[in-house]
């Protein structure tokens, strides 16, 4: 479904992403992990068109999408959520999602926007009442809204930037279960970015590890978590992550 070849992003003399290649199969959940500043967010920005790549190719459903404007990539079927939720606070929850539903799909239609907004809100468990405001939502609620907006654009591939740092353990598990449900019920392929490994490992089919802009490991969760290079990257850099590696192995 997605084929990335030799993706490079340079900022001046600094190479943030260096010749990264990977494939994502239809219906798969791919975990993308790496320490802070490893380049995983940059990869997301390249995939969603927020940044143009310096080199490389991104083929989605056989079509080259590298360097397209972000709204074209969304319309092609690649949805995205943000690590920090950015809702429109002056619009209602429903308006936020319906707006994504209207403009996100290739052919703008009012009824389709309405339907997809209702479905997306029901999916993530937010009120479908037309006047509920964003202000009442907590951290977990805002994440759900972010997901609902992305789902409403009708993606075939969802780029989920789900730093779960702000959530407690049960909320993390809920969020992970939600992603799985989205894949299972809507058939949406997912790439999930996260820097905490534990919760991610329970849900994903495959994991790719990025460090200093390069892919250092790729494979099934238990293979990757016992890979010495991965352990080296996580050891000492992030105590929580190390613990998570240990947890995942068990």
């Amino acid at each position, binding site marked *: 479904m997605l084929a990335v070849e030799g993706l490079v992003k340079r900022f001046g003399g600094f190479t943030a992403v260096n010749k990264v290649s990977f494939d994502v199969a239809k219906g798969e959940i791919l975990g993308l992990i790496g320490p802070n500043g490893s380049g995983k967010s940059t990869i997301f920005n390249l995939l*969603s*068109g*927020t940044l143009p790549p310096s080199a490389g190719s991104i083929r989605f459903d056989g079509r080259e999408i590298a360097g397209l*404007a*972000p*709204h074209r990539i*969304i*319309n092609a079927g690649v949805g*995205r959520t*943000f690590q920090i939720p*950015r809702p*429109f*606070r*002056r*619009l209602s929850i429903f*308006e*936020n999602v*319906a*707006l*994504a539903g*209207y*403009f*996100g*799909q290739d052919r*703008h239609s*009012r009824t389709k*926007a309405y339907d997809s907004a209702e479905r997306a809100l029901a999916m993530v468990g937010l009120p479908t009442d037309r006047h509920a405001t964003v202000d009442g939502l907590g951290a977990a609620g805002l994440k759900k809204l972010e997901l609902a*907006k992305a789902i409403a*654009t009708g993606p075939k591939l969802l780029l989920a930037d789900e730093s779960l740092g702000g959530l407690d353990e049960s909320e993390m598990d809920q969020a992970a279960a939600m992603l799985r449900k989205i894949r299972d019920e809507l058939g949406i392929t997912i790439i999930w970015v996260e820097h905490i490994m534990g919760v991610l490992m329970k849900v994903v089919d495959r994991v790719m590890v990025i460090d200093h802009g390069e892919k250092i490991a790729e494979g099934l969760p238990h293979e990757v978590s016992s890979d010495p290079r991965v352990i080296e990257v996580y050891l000492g850099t992030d105590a929580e992550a190390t613990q998570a590696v240990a947890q995942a192995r068990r």
Partner: protein
Amino acid sequence: MQAFLEIFDIYLLEAVINGILLGGVLALLALGLNLIFGVIDVTWICYAELVMIGMYGMYFLVSTYHVPYWAAAPLCILLVAGVGALLHLVVIQPLLSAPPINQLLATGGVLFFLQSLATVCFGIDFRNLGIQLPVLGVGEMNFSYARLLAFGAALVGISAVYVFMNRTYTGTAIRAIAQDRHIMPLMGVDARRIYIITSAIGGGLAGLASCLLVLQYDVHPFVGLSFGPITFLICVLGGLGNFFGGFVAAFVFAEIISLGGLFSDLEWGYVLAFGFFILMMFIRPGGLLARRS
């Protein structure tokens, strides 16, 4: 003494009502300028020059080409809407990420460019449509139909924009993009298209105003100066980008002008209005409706 008071009251009432009628057109202009500022975050200092273009458009269509007024008006609205979109494409779009002062100076440049261009093309003659609408007499008060029409049409225009902004997805996107410029493309919205539509609406409102003002004022290259500064000050007084604040401030300004003019020359109304503005900048710098900090 009694008789004097009665006459005075009639004049006072007439001035209050004329103030309201004037407020309608000012509110229309303020909405256009606020829309551009609120959505694109750029102030069109040259906004009233779009009105000037529209008034010339009306003049030539009606006087030279003998197009009936009712047919010329929509053409003119479209013309100025097009000018608004063009202004965005040619001047604003390349400066979107430039410092605000550069954007301000660039649109200021457009102001003088358009004034000079109009002088070169049309000369400094004062021209008018030659349409004289009758006057409505109510008791001893007189109201010109031109003003009544202007007020009514301005309110229709404002309502149309309100409905568009609240009932359509494009309108919702316009309201939303004002809150977060960078997130919109990731919801599938082509931000450039939204900006061009917004600019065309802003231009269209100036076009509508020009159709109405051309019935009351002569056209000349500097006619924009009669409306530009006051529109800008109304927007600042209402809180730049605050649609409702601009609406209220337009009527406050119009009443000061109208009532101030009652006691002496019309120009005194403007003196008082601008004086009031300066005073308000000390008292409520964030605008009339700003929350007290």
